[in-house]
Each structure stands twice: as structure tokens, then as C-alpha cells.
């Protein structure tokens, strides 16, 4: 980084992923101090509590160490060594704290520090109170995961506390103190949740006013928290992603839920409950006020309609709208919420994901019939020029009446159309991951690596065709989905998408194995040319006929004929046998 990068700090830090880190390295002393102050404000409590918990230090020693650590951040240029590609900042800081405390112990030179560098008052008394209220299991201390979890949780608590304080100041500035009180009563209280009606009575306002006030407060809280997070070198993924999922504290959960909850004011929908998180956003159930029906509402994580994710969500809605088929979930509406997030609504499907549903289906023929219905939907999409590109059990829903619906068309490719090149958001189940560097290919297939060269790899390992895994997006066609269908068929039959045998696992019939092998051939030219042909082979197998994927011997043909008509053959044989016996008896 050149010095010019840091000379025009201005009043605010740039909203980049590493803004505070960069500002701390700035040659502008004022900016550097502000950055350190921001860093310290967010991290001093987690560091202090961590020293108290992990290193079991008395309060006064922990206070010294905490102040010394933040001073050392500058003196030892620890932040210069931070590499965002290798770890998150909070993980790096936690490791630095360990190293710092350990070194201090070895040197035996703890002495009072502080004063010049730290510009924020460190309220160690409140930190001690919080520490006393935190449930900590000493037995977990040796576990590296528990250390990470503890520091993570305290960091989020610290960040939220700062954001809540900012929100309070904002409410005071806008003369909306009552809104803050409502927010505090509803979202910050750790006890039993109070209802909107109770708040309405308590504050002497209508339920609608309570709803509006809380929606505004959550929207502002979310904005403030996101701003702080961006400033602190974090990212929206960290704010919204699974890193925070293990938080158990009720108030933190409510804050997070409240901040995430979409503001449906101005739409015809009323939010009911959260259903799932997908690659791009969260799916809720909502009630359509006009049509009085329940719908599924998929809303993007991040505000704005001009980003790549927003484009992808809108594109997904349009793809779904173009595919009217009983096996494809219909889309009802698309739009932008008051908080700037893009959403679309679709049919609410009550049912199970295929991987869960299949556990209750023991018979092979029933599983194959489900598979044929999936093929039907995919073949229809192909006929409309749409590739799914992410077919896997988690993206198939089976309804209460056995209806099969292919979901999540977020990665769909419209044949003949340009494909979005920047879609790089990661799915919690590694649905989307970036192209591995050559050195990493032999390693963990789900590892997220930095994109190099052309093409972003999208799909799910195990279900993704080789050409898709190579990022060869331009040459993908229906045979890429056929590969995924082959893996899906194998999953339905033996419980895994790959061919590798599982000890004690089911043995696959030769014809079915041949269908799977043909559809998952490495070369697209060796696969079925269309989904219909693959489905036809599966249907032929179900009917006891020969499949096109495999040439049978005469013996196998006879065996198949016998299996198909075994009862009739046995009956006729019994009749003839009985006739012969009777004739022999009558001739005596």
C-alpha cells in the first residue's frame, strides 16, 4: 500500500473490508488514533474477558494486560502482519492476546500501562459484572473451539452494545426516545418476550404505532451495526452468516432476528416465520393479505437493487416465472422492501427436503418414481432453455401429497444468454464456491479458494459435472444437469452421490448402476443426450424391460423375463406339473 492511500482519510473511514486496519497503519496520526479508538471500543471487552477467563488472571492484572495489549498493537506493529485472507481479524487478535499474555508471563515484566494511547474509557466494572453473569464452563477451556466461540460471542456482544448505544443517541437526536424504549423493552430484555399489545397498553399508543416504531428501530439498528461491522474490517457475511449462529444469549438472538427481519411495511404481505436460509438470503413464510393465502418469501440479505446478488435474485424470480410446471415452484411476486432489500414470493410448499423425505421411502420403485417426477420438471426446464445447475437432494421438496418440486433456481443458466460472472456468494452448504487454485484441487473439495482465471465455479461437489467444476460455463448444456441427475439417482438408491462403495451399504442393481454410470460419465458425449432418454431408461427398468445403458446377456434376459412374470410362470408350471402327475397316476 502506498502512502497516498492513507493521506486523505477525511472525517470517516472508507467503508471497505479492511478499513480500520488500513487506518491504523495510516501516516495520519489523527486517523490512526481514531482507528485505534474504534478498534479498542469494539474489542477491549472481549480481550479483557478473555484474559480473565482463558488465562484466569485477577481483575487488576487483566486490566493491565488489556491496556498493554492495545498499546502493543501499535508498538509491535501487530496489525501490519494481519492477513485478511488467512483469518478473521478477531481470530487474529485472539491469537495475539494469547501470545501477548504468554510473553508477558515469561518476561515477568508486567507493569502499569495505559494513558497515552487509549482514548476510550474502559469500564472494567461493567465488564466484570457481565463476566459474572456469563455462564462459563471451565471444562471447555482446553478446547480451541470453545476459545474461539467465547471470543466470538464477546466480540458480537461488544459490537451490539456499541450499536445499541449509537441507536439510543440517534433516537435522542431525533426526539424518538419512546421508540428506543420500545426497542429496549421488546428486543433487549432477556426475559419472556412482551407482546405488541402489552407494549401498546404500557405506552398508551396503538399496536400499529408499536409495529412501526419497532420496524424503524430495527432498520436503524441494522444499518448502524452493519456500518460498525464494515468499519471494523468485518463483512456482511460475518454479520449475516453462520459465524454468529452459536450465540445463545436471548437478547443477542433477538437483536439479530430483529435486525434481519424484513420490513414488509407497504407490501401486501404479513411476516409469519423464518423457514430457512439459502445461498442468497432468508426464506420466510408470509401471509398474502389480498389473496388470504400463505406464501414463501425469499428476501436478500443485503439492501440495494443494483448489486450482483440482487440481480441474481430477480433473475431467479424471472426464471421461475417462465417455468410454469407442476414440478417447479411457481413465483407470485417480486419487488423491493422498504429497507431496500429485494424479495420475491412463491408458493409455500409444506413438505420435506428430498434427503429427509427419502428416509421414509424404503422401496426402490417408489424412489425411482420420485426420481422420474424430478426428471419431468428438469426436462421441462431444458425444453424452455433453462439449466438448473444445482440439482441436489436439498433443492428438491416433496409435498404432503407426494408432489415433487424442484427448488432454488438461483444458479440457473438460460441457454444462449450471458451468465452473471460475479455471483460468488457462498451457500451455507457450499452450494457456491469459487474456483480452486490448481494446488488445492486434490484437497478438500468444498474449500473456498480465491478465484483465478476465468469462470466462477458454482454448484455442489458430488453433484456438479466435471465441466461445471472446471468453470467451463460457456460449454454447459443439458448434459451437465444430467450428470447431477445421475448423482441424485445414485443418492436415492445408495444414499450417496458418488460411486465409491460404502461398507455395509446397499448393492445397486446392474441396470441401475449402468444408468447412473452413463449419466455421470466424465465426458458429456458419453452421457444421455437428454433427460427424457434418461427417464425412459429408468421407466424401462421399472417396467422390467431392458435398459439402453447396458447390453444384457441371454442369461440375464431370461432372468429378467422370469422376474417380470415369475408368478404367472410358477402358476403355469404348477398346473403342468399337476397335469403330468394326474396323467401318470391315471395310466397305472
Amino acid at each position, binding site marked *: 500500500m502506498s502512502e497516498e492511500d492513507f493521506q486523505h482519510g477525511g472525517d470517516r473511514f472508507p467503508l471497505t473490508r479492511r478499513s480500520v486496519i488500513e487506518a491504523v497503519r495510516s501516516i495520519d496520526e489523527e486517523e490512526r488514533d481514531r482507528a485505534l479508538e474504534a478498534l479498542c471500543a469494539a474489542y477491549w471487552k472481549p480481550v479483557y474477558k478473555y484474559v480473565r477467563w482463558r488465562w484466569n488472571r485477577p481483575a487488576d492484572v487483566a486490566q493491565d494486560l488489556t491496556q498493554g495489549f492495545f498499546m502493543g498493537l501499535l508498538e509491535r506493529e501487530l496489525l501490519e502482519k494481519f492477513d485478511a485472507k488467512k483469518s478473521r481479524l478477531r481470530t487474529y487478535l485472539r491469537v495475539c492476546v494469547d501470545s501477548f499474555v504468554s510473553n508477558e508471563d515469561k518476561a515477568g515484566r508486567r507493569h502499569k500501562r495505559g494513558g497515552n494511547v487509549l482514548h476510550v474509557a474502559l469500564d472494567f466494572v461493567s465488564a466484570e459484572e457481565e463476566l459474572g453473569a456469563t455462564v462459563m464452563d471451565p471444562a471447555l477451556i482446553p478446547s480451541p473451539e470453545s476459545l474461539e466461540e467465547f471470543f466470538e460471542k464477546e466480540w458480537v456482544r461488544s459490537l451490539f452494545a456499541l450499536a445499541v448505544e449509537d441507536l439510543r443517541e440517534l433516537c435522542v437526536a431525533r426526539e424518538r426516545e419512546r421508540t428506543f424504549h420500545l426497542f429496549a423493552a421488546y428486543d433487549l430484555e432477556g426475559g419472556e418476550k412482551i407482546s405488541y399489545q402489552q407494549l401498546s397498553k404500557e405506552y398508551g399508543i396503538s399496536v400499529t404505532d408499536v409495529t412501526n416504531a419497532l420496524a424503524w428501530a430495527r432498520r436503524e439498528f441494522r444499518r448502524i451495526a452493519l456500518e460498525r461491522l464494515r468499519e471494523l474490517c468485518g463483512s456482511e457475511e460475518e454479520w449475516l452468516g453462520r459465524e454468529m449462529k452459536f450465540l445463545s444469549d436471548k437478547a443477542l438472538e433477538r437483536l439479530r432476528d430483529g435486525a434481519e427481519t424484513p420490513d414488509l411495511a407497504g407490501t401486501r404481505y404479513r411476516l409469519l416465520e423464518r423457514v430457512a436460509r439459502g445461498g442468497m438470503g432468508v426464506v420466510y413464510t408470509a401471509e398474502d393479505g389480498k389473496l388470504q393465502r400463505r406464501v414463501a418469501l425469499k428476501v436478500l440479505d443485503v439492501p440495494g437493487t443494483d448489486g450482483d446478488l440482487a440481480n441474481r435474485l430477480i433473475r431467479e424470480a424471472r426464471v421461475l416465472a417462465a417455468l410454469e410446471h407442476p414440478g417447479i415452484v411457481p413465483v407470485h411476486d417480486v419487488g423491493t422492501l422498504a429497507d431496500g432489500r429485494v424479495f420475491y414470493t412463491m408458493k409455500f410448499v409444506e413438505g420435506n427436503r428430498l434427503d429427509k423425505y427419502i428416509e421414509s421411502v424404503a422401496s426402490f420403485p417408489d424412489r425411482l418414481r420420485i426420481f422420474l417426477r424430478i426428471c419431468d420438471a428438469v426436462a421441462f426446464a431444458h425444453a424452455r432453455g433453462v439449466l438448473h445447475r444445482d440439482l441436489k437432494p436439498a433443492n428438491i421438496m416433496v409435498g404432503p401429497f407426494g408432489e415433487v418440486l424442484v427448488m432454488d433456481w438461483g444458479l440457473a443458466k438460460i441457454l444462449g444468454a450471458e451468465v452473471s460472472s460475479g455471483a460468488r456468494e457462498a451457500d451455507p452448504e457450499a452450494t457456491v464456491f469459487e474456483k480452486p487454485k490448481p494446488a488445492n484441487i486434490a484437497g478438500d473439495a468444498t474449500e473456498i479458494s480465491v478465484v483465478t482465471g476465468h469462470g466462477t465455479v458454482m454448484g455442489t461437489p458430488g453433484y456438479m459435472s466435471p465441466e461445471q467444476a472446471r468453470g467451463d460455463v460457456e460449454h454447459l448444456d443439458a448434459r451437465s444437469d444430467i450428470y447431477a441427475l445421475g448423482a441424485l439417482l445414485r443418492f436415492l438408491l445408495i444414499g450417496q452421490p458418488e460411486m465409491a462403495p460404502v461398507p455395509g451399504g446397499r448393492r445397486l442393481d446392474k441396470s441401475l448402476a449402468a444408468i447412473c454410470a452413463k449419466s455421470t460419465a466424465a465426458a458429456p458425449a458419453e452421457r444421455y443426450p437428454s433427460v427424457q432418454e434418461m427417464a425412459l431408461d429408468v421407466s424401462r427398468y421399472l417396467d422390467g424391460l431392458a435398459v439402453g445403458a447396458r447390453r444384457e446377456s441371454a442369461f440375464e434376459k431370461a432372468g429378467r423375463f422370469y422376474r417380470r412374470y415369475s*408368478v*404367472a410362470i410358477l*402358476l403355469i408350471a*404348477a398346473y403342468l406339473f*399337476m397335469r403330468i402327475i394326474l*396323467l401318470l397316476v*391315471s395310466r397305472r
Partner: protein
Amino acid sequence: MNKILLGVILGAVLGVFDGLTALFTPDPAIRAGIVGIIVGSTGKGLAAGLICGLFARKVRSMAGGIALGLFLGFLFALFVALGVHNYYVRIIIPGSIVGLIVGYATQK
């Protein structure tokens, strides 16, 4: 194929075949009356096939179809055997099995 038609055709074919097997008996009296045997055997096959076909159109049950076919085959063969006062085993057992096959086929 229409289940009633299938039952009738199969019953008739198996009935004819069942009647023709009488040609292999050593008793010349039986061979002399082969036409009557074939007609009678075909008639009971037709009747069993018709009833089994009607049943299959109303009820989807393999076990039920087989049981009904077996019962009808036995019943009709018993009537024939009682008519001739002889050859009970040689008439009733094949007749019952023909009924069973027709019952199975109409359900299949």
C-alpha cells in the same frame, strides 16, 4: 387390456387346454366324449374369467383375485365332477388351478 375381456379370453383358452388334456387319458370312453369335455371346460373357464374380470374392475387386490379364482375354479369343477359322478380329483384340481391363474392374471 380390459380386465373382463382378459378374464374371458384367458378363461376360455385355459379351459380349452384343460379339456384337451383329456385326450391323454388311457380311458377310451373319456376320449370319445372329448367334445363335450372341451365345451364344458371352456364354459367354466369363461364363467370364472368373466366373474374374476368383473371383480378385478371393482377391487384391486391380488390376494382377493387369486382366492376368488381358486374358489370359482373349484366350485365349477365340483359341479362338473358331481355331474359325471367320477374323476373328482382329475377334474377339481386342474379346474381350481385354472381359476387361480385367471384370478391372478386379471389382477395383474
